[in-house]
């Protein structure tokens, strides 16, 4: 006689009563074991393994014992699963279908000892499906009932559990103020109203070593004891619990607990916060905004953030690694001048539109020969708009810009491209096309530049004012020295600088004309700057050597 290996699975949703010596799980298992014993003449024998899920809902399959059981089924260690009732296995029809599929594959059947039916017949399967439909219905009704109860309780101002906000501890169905913590909350509101800026509040708290207090969760784990984050401060400033209300979804009800801060402080805080809501992304609606904000990432997928610095009236825009911007310094962090990378992107895009037919071929968009002329004119118009840096157009066309050390990749949105060429996309077209533009990143001093592969800077930058200033100074001082009436020492005194500086600068009057032309036109290599000009140790006399030294015209 064949031995039939039976696995007994038991489950109970609530934890209530599980601590008893003989609980519902034991009762289920005992009944199942008795049933297995009654079938001993058929060769049934219960496996010694115990598959118990205590306190776990039948709504999900994420139950440890069930997963263990499924693993054993897959390993072929089980022939029959014995359960007390079908809904012990699952209450969800969808999950049940999944389980049955797994069982069928492994050749495993299951037996419900109190509900006798035979799933090998159509009638049996109908009965089972009906049963499960009711089980699922029951579960949904229960969930609805619980949701309604929570809503009703909150409408009465009750605290319905969870981690209590800082300053309170749970007290039955309401909250009780924890005075030292409440003081911190009041202090945060006061500081925010003083400073009007969450970042400054965080800086102040960090500087004064005011940290989140250590609190204990219901499961005994401690948390807190670290510096306040900006997000935490925002959460505190926006939490209506502090003004004595209980929030429920988008509603607020008068709470049973006491308020920590007064209504007028709350109102002032909310007004201030509302006034500081960031506006729309600037790139889409201003001429000088960062075109690629939100689109640009580095080769590891880390976002680059549009940032700027101001010197006087001049704004220097950059795209900066997310980690650097948030204070975590990293040697691989990027800080790329915005105009350069924007120019590179715009030029690569415009160049791609110069050959719309190739673009369409790459996107596998079919081409009708009658359309060619129209497509070329549409592509030309689009290229012109791209060069104009039309922000809306660029943001529609570009899905992502990826900065690699040796190249720039642009993900072009196929649908937007087709729209601007006024052709229909095909079903097999990819969502995006990858354009590659061979540029590399070079560091000059602390600055990171993006340069074309011949070493020239990407943007035909406006001429470098500090370099030109040096050249002008060199010419002026050399003109004075050339008259032979004044020594370098006297000139230095008259100009209020040291002698060695005069010497270093005057040498620049002897630079090869082509270097000066390049600097005046802003065409110099990205590695050449004012510092490099003035601090070159030995300026070669020969112009060809100078060109080699400064890598001009490589």
């Amino acid at each position, binding site marked *: 006689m064949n031995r039939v290996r039976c696995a007994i699975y038991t489950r109970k949703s609530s934890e209530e009563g599980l601590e008893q010596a003989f609980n519902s799980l034991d009762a289920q298992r005992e009944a199942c074991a008795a049933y297995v014993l009654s079938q001993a003449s058929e060769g049934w024998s219960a496996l010694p393994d115990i598959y118990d899920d205590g306190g776990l809902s039948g709504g999900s399959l994420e139950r440890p014992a069930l997963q263990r059981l499924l693993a054993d089924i897959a390993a072929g260690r089980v022939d029959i699963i014995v359960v007390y009732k079908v809904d012990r296995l699952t209450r969800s029809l969808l999950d049940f279908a999944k389980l049955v599929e797994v069982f069928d594959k492994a050749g495993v059947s299951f037996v419900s000892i109190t509900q006798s039916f035979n799933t090998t017949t159509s009638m049996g399967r109908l009965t089972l499906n009906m049963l499960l439909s009711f089980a699922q219905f029951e579960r949904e009704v229960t969930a609805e009932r619980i949701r309604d109860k929570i809503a009703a309780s909150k409408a009465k101002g009750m605290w319905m559990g969870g981690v209590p906000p800082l300053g309170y501890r749970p007290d039955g169905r309401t909250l009780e103020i924890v005075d030292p913590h409440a003081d911190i909350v009041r202090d945060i509101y006061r500081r925010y109203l003083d400073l009007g800026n969450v970042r400054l509040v965080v800086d102040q708290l960090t500087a004064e070593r005011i940290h989140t207090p250590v609190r204990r969760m219901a499961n005994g784990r401690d948390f807190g004891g670290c510096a306040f984050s900006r997000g935490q401060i925002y959460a505190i400033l926006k939490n209506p619990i502090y003004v004595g209300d209980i929030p429920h979804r988008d509603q607020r009800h008068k709470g049973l607990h006491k308020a920590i801060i007064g209504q007028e402080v709350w109102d002032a805080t909310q007004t201030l916060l509302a006034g500081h809501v960031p506006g729309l992304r600037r790139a889409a609606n201003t001429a000088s905004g960062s075109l690629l904000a939100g689109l640009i990432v580095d080769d590891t997928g880390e976002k680059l953030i549009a940032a700027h610095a101001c010197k006087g009236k001049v704004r220097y825009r950059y795209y900066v690694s997310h980690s650097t911007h948030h204070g975590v310094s990293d040697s691989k962090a990027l800080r790329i001048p915005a105009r350069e990378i924007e120019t590179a992107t715009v030029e690569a895009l415009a160049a791609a539109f110069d050959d719309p037919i190739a673009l369409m071929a790459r996107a596998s968009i079919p081409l009708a020969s009658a359309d060619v002329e129209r497509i070329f004119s549409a592509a030309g118009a689009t290229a012109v708009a791209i060069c104009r840096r039309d922000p809306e157009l660029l943001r529609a066309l570009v899905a992502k810009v990826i900065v690699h050390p040796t190249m720039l990749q642009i993900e072009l949105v196929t649908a937007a491209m087709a729209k601007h060429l006024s052709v229909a996309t095909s079903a097999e077209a990819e969502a995006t096309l990858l354009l590659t533009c061979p540029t590399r990143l070079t560091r000059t001093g602390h600055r990171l530049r993006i340069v074309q592969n011949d070493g020239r800077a990407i943007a035909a930058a406006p001429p470098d004012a500090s370099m*030109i*200033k040096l*050249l*002008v100074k060199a*010419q*002026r001082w*050399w003109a004075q*020295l*050339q*008259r*032979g*009436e*004044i*020594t*370098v020492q006297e000139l230095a005194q008259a100009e209020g600088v040291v002698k060695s500086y005069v*010497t270093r600068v*005057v*040498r620049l*009057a*002897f630079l*090869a*004309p082509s270097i*000066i*032309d390049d600097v*005046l036109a802003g065409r110099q290599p990205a590695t050449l700057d004012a510092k490099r000009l003035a601090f070159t140790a030995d*300026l070669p*006399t*020969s*112009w060809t050597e100078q060109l080699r030294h400064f890598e001009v015209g490589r």
Partner: protein
Amino acid sequence: MVALTTMSSAQLRDEWRALKASPVPLVSPSMLRLALGYELQAQALGGLSRVSQQRLTQLGSAKTVTQAARPGTRLIREWNGTAHIVTIGEDGVIRWNDREWRSLSEVAREITGTRWSGPAFFGLKKRLAA
């Protein structure tokens, strides 16, 4: 050029007198060597272009600033009730009155009958705020 590297201070000064017929600058021999090297190369290969010289002088005096007329620009100047349109072709050639011109100043002279700075006449040269 090669000889410069080995010349003594006195020799360098003689060389300067021979080359420039002007007083010798009161600078170190190495600076003088650089200066002489520049002069020799400028004589052989041509020095700084007139445009660059003018630009440096202009930047040095810091009184005016001239914008270059870029290819593809159209310059419009009203003179005595007539609007004159000068186009700078994509090839950089100045065209006005169905003719090509060598400089904006020539065009300005033709329009006004007197010598004008072309860039100033067409508004490319601006006075800097003091």
